């Protein structure tokens, strides 16, 4: 084993990166459930999770323990192998898509190896990601079929039809970006968006010349919400009509795997939106003399947030909260102070702006969920085929013309 690693040091480095990324991702996904429940609760004038830890901060842990200890039921007459395969397929494909996402421009050093902040820098990254997501349909479809239940089957069928319909729009909507960048590699797509118009307006694809990709972005985000089976397009699991849709018969950790898979796809889509249309890791501020104070924004944000949590935590009502929240606040503020150091300040810029954009898109996801009612099935199909698809096609034609006319 050691001989293999000695001969292929990249293998070891990749392994380390995968393990670290997986750990961070799983923690982030667990807290994404908390984030969603909190935001939706506040949209609906409720409190959301509040009991497990201060402001329900330990709720994800409690949920995880509950999933682990629930009884794992396999319905009678289910196709056992496929019933087991479906959640594995969903989770593994959703998580492996994150491996293609670049988190920052600078290299890190692991075991003396210079390596980018990305697990796999594939030259056709975008196509690869679409390949992974196109196989992801099987998880949902097979789960619905293998459960041997009419609600599940209906959910699976709906999701297959929906994903086939919206995949067209999803792939067509990014063609405009590809035409402008001239590459399928994520890093090069981001670098093609660097620079500023008139000295202050970032050349992100959403607002860049020759043709701002506003139409492409609207099509992309709508289709992406449909692809990830989220409200208002969550017909595969419409709980009002289908029980819980394709995962009605799933319990315990198999259900958790679908759940985590769905959240992982949300993160992937948010990363994609940030990379393709909002300049990825690029800062919204120019790098000029009178703009150099913007380098301290990450540090200032963390320090202010940390002090805020500290001050709030000292006055919190429960003793546990009085102990936990100040520690969290101090940790956040400490990170902020670390970010202001000369050795770290350049490095944190990329990941900070990238993750900030991703969190913003995740918020929009939850916001849409909390605001819009679910579509009817025929409305969904009509919207997909008669509105979104022609719009995405028009965007491709217009962008091609604009790119061709560019001097």
């Amino acid at each position, binding site marked *: 084993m050691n001989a293999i690693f000695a001969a292929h040091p990249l293998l070891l480095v990749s392994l380390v990166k995968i393990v670290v990324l997986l750990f961070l991702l799983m923690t982030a996904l667990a807290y994404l459930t908390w984030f969603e429940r909190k935001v939706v609760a506040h949209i609906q004038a409720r409190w959301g999770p509040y009991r497990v830890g201060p402001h329900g901060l330990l709720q994800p842990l409690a949920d995880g323990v509950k999933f682990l200890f629930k009884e794992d039921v396999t319905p009678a007459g289910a196709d056992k192998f496929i019933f087991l395969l479906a959640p594995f397929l969903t989770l593994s494909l959703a998580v492996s898509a994150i491996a293609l996402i670049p988190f920052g421009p600078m290299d890190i050093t692991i075991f003396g190896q210079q390596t980018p902040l990305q697990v796999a820098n594939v030259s056709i990254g975008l196509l690869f990601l679409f390949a992974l997501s196109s196989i992801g349909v099987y998880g949902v479809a097979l789960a619905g079929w293998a459960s041997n239940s009419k609600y599940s089957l209906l959910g699976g069928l709906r999701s297959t039809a929906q994903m086939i319909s919206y*995949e067209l729009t999803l792939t067509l909507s990014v063609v405009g970006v590809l035409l402008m960048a001239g590459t399928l590699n994520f890093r090069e797509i981001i670098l093609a968006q660097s620079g500023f118009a008139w000295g202050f307006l970032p050349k992100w694809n959403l607002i860049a010349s020759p043709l701002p990709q506003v139409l492409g972005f609207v099509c992309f985000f709508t289709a992406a919400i449909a692809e990830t089976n989220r409200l208002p397009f969550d017909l595969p699991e419409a709980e009002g009509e289908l029980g819980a849709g394709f995962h009605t018969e799933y319990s315990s950790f198999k259900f958790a795997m679908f759940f985590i898979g769905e959240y992982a796809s949300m993160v992937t889509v948010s990363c994609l939106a940030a990379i393709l249309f909002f300049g990825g890791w690029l800062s919204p501020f120019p790098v000029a003399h009178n703009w150099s104070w913007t380098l301290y924004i990450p540090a200032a944000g963390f320090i202010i947030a940390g002090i805020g949590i500290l001050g709030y935590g000292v006055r919190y009502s429960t003793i546990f909260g009085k102990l936990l929240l100040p520690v969290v606040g101090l940790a956040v503020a400490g990170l902020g102070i670390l970010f202001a150091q000369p050795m770290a300040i350049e490095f944190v810029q990329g990941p900070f702006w990238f993750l900030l954009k991703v969190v913003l898109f995740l918020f929009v996801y939850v916001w849409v969920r909390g605001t819009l009612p679910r579509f009817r099935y025929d409305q969904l199909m009509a919207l997909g085929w008669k509105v979104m698809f022609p719009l995405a096609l028009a965007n491709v034609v217009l962008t091609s013309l604009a790119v061709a006319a560019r001097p």
Partner: protein
Amino acid sequence: MHVETVLFFVLALMAIGGAVNLIVQRHPIHSALSLIVVMVALAGEYLLLGSEFIAAVQIIVYAGAIMVLFVFVIMLLNAGVEERTHVSRMAQYVGVPVAALLLIELVWSIRRGSAALPIQVSGTVSTSQLATLLFRGYVFPFELTSVLILVAIIGALALAKREP
């Protein structure tokens, strides 16, 4: 042994195993899934050959689009387990000999040709090289194929619309 060689044999075994399983399985869904395994294994082989674009397109088009439709139709029709029948006379007297003949021909041509064929190591083929080839050199056959597909779509629509 190289990692590439090991991967080649793992993927080849996956493809052959999937293909055999496709015939042996009695349930249509299981057969369709085996076919997907074959497609994905082939995509892996393309990747080993340095052709990333073809690998991705293989997965997107075959495993992701065409096979999804297969699975969708099987699920929609709720096709049950196939019944085993005896070998038909056609297959027994014509099919088996022809299959054996093809196998012999295949083995013979591989044994004869392996020394003569030069192994081309062209490295990675970039997407833009492929696009240049497709849209400059072979643009006429390419466009002709798309017209053919359009005709097929219109034909399918006409057939589906005929029933009142």
